């Protein structure tokens, strides 16, 4: 048991818990309204949106998994960087438009947007279910990050006792999300970011200082891992895989309900646009964090018997915790681990709130009780947020981690299939709700089949055209098929279907 680390860790965790409950009174609103509980009253300015979106997009799982991928697979893991480069032009260009539409019509979820646009409740249902199914394993993976750092402090055991710290952390999370809604993660995100910046700057300065610069870090990397493998003449090989992984992940990102929630909770389109220029500060941190994977190689933590047990339990996900334990005194390791654990709380809270909004608005009000009042919707959302978190906890305790990762991979490709419905509809008036539903079904099935052919292990599928191979991210192939079906069917259906009755079209 690493007592110094554990003491600091628990102290920070208690502090954050207090903050989570106090958040209910911050810029207090009527928390019985869903837009207050679930969107913070749409009052978050540039500054808070920066922390909220940052806490959302750069999660504990990112901090553990990206360096772990670099540690294990090398350069290909760096695709997280081009991904973060291209998400911000997309944020700037597309999402202010969506915000306006949502603001004018009181939409809370992307499913609301689709229902307003096309008046097709089955399409709205498909979008709602896709969002829920894709986000659940994502919440579960946040717990993996928490599990690894708790284990790294020597708190581990088998069976239910071993999972107890995780269960306690999640009960706390559930309690303050229930009372404070979106205000809680927004406030905690500030603490999380301060901690993360301290840790990353310390690591990125201290370790190269000890080794004598960054050159020894990179020279410790096996040459085959340092760069992408240049492709042979008849294929785009690792290049197309790298670029499409970045592109596909970027397209899916803002469709996830938790990003949508953070975007819609901002106070104006300009708060979103300013963040397109300000959020990349996090990307630099992520880039430095990614390199921790190479630092772990340079310090040979994998061969150190002190960490053998950790690597056995958590695989390459243990690379960053091992590196921190190897380099820093116990109390600082406590800060670093607290940063990662709190980095899991923030997105888990936002994700569960986002899912709860969907359950309440699009399943309960949409299908069960069309006349539900605002207070009733909020009550349902609060209970749903508890059920969703409990579900994620059960998932991670009983389902093996590799399975959760495969599930998240599928989640990403399913999530991107709502792009034509949610985003293209902002620009194209010719799309038809039923055609979009067909496109969604084709895209999701094709993607799932492609993933099945790799036994759900790889994100990349190779298509060969005229003797040239294009290995590309499955989500993009699926999205391509989806868009073609949506557009072609919309054209074919046009003479037979009355124009969509959605009120948003007239208003826009």
């Amino acid at each position, binding site marked *: 048991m690493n007592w110094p680390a554990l003491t600091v860790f628990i102290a920070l965790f208690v502090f954050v818990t207090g903050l989570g409950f106090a958040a209910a009174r911050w810029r207090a609103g009527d928390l019985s309204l869903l837009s207050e509980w679930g969107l913070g*009253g*749409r*009052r978050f300015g540039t500054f808070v949106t920066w922390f909220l979106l940052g806490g959302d997009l750069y999660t504990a799982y990112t901090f553990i998994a990206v360096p772990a991928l670099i540690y294990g697979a090398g*350069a290909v893991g*760096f695709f997280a*960087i*081009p991904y*973060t*480069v*291209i998400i*911000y*032009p997309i944020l*700037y*260009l597309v999402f*202010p438009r969506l915000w*306006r539409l949502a*603001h004018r019509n*009181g939409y809370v979820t992307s499913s609301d947007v689709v229902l307003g646009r096309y008046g097709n409740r089955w399409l709205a249902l498909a979008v709602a279910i896709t969002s829920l199914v894709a986000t659940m394993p994502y919440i579960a993976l946040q717990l993996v990050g928490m599990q690894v750092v708790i284990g790294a402090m020597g708190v581990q055991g088998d069976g239910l006792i071993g999972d107890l710290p995780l269960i306690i952390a999640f009960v706390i999370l559930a309690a303050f999300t229930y009372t404070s809604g979106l205000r809680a993660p927004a406030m905690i995100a500030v603490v999380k970011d301060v901690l993360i910046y301290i840790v990353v700057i310390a690591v990125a300065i201290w370790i*190269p200082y000890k080794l004598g*610069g*960054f*050159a*020894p*870090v*990179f020279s410790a990397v096996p040459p085959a891992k*340092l*760069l*992408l493998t*240049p492709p042979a003449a008849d294929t785009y090989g*690792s*290049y*197309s895989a*790298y*670029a499409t992984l*970045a*592109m596909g992940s970027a397209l899916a990102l803002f469709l996830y309900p938790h990003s949508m929630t953070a975007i819609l909770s901002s*106070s*104006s*389109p*300009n708060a979103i*646009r*300013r963040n*397109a*220029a*300000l959020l*990349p*500060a996090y*990307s*630099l941190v992520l*880039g430095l964090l990614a*390199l921790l994977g190479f630092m772990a190689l340079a310090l040979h933590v994998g061969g150190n018997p002190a960490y053998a047990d950790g690597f056995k339990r958590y695989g390459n996900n243990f690379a960053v915790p091992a590196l921190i334990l190897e380099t820093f005194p116990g109390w600082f390791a406590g800060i670093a681990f607290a940063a990662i654990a709190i980095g899991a709380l923030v997105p888990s809270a936002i994700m569960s709130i986002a899912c709860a909004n969907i359950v309440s608005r699009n399943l309960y009000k949409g299908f069960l009780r069309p006349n539900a009042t605002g207070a009733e919707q909020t009550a349902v959302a609060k209970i749903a947020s508890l059920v969703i978190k409990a579900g994620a906890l059960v998932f991670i305790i009983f389902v093996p981690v590799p399975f959760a990762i495969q599930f998240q991979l599928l989640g990403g490709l399913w999530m991107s299939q709502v792009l034509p419905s949610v985003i293209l509809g902002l620009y194209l008036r010719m799309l038809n709700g039923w055609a979009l539903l067909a496109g969604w079904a084709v895209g999701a099935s094709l993607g799932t089949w492609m993933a099945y052919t790799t036994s759900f292990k790889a994100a990349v599928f190779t298509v060969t055209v005229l003797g040239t191979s294009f290995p590309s991210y499955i989500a993009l192939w699926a999205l391509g098929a989806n868009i073609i079906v949506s557009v072609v069917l919309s054209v074919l259906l046009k003479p037979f279907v009355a124009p969509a009755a959605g009120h948003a079209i007239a208003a826009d």
Partner: protein
Amino acid sequence: MATPPAPEPRWHWTRFLFILPFIAMFWVSSYNRVEPALFGFPFFYWYQLLWIVLAAAIAGIVYKAEH
């Protein structure tokens, strides 16, 4: 509902600059190499990190131009 937001900003031609990060990042063969290294970072790594800053600068430029 909160107060109505400010009117949409003018659409400015600088928005076309947003194409640059996409071209740069998708053209993988242009940066998959070690030299020239910078502060011990192989080109592959510092070039992509540099684009984070450039893309942020572009967003800043477009925002300034439109407001």
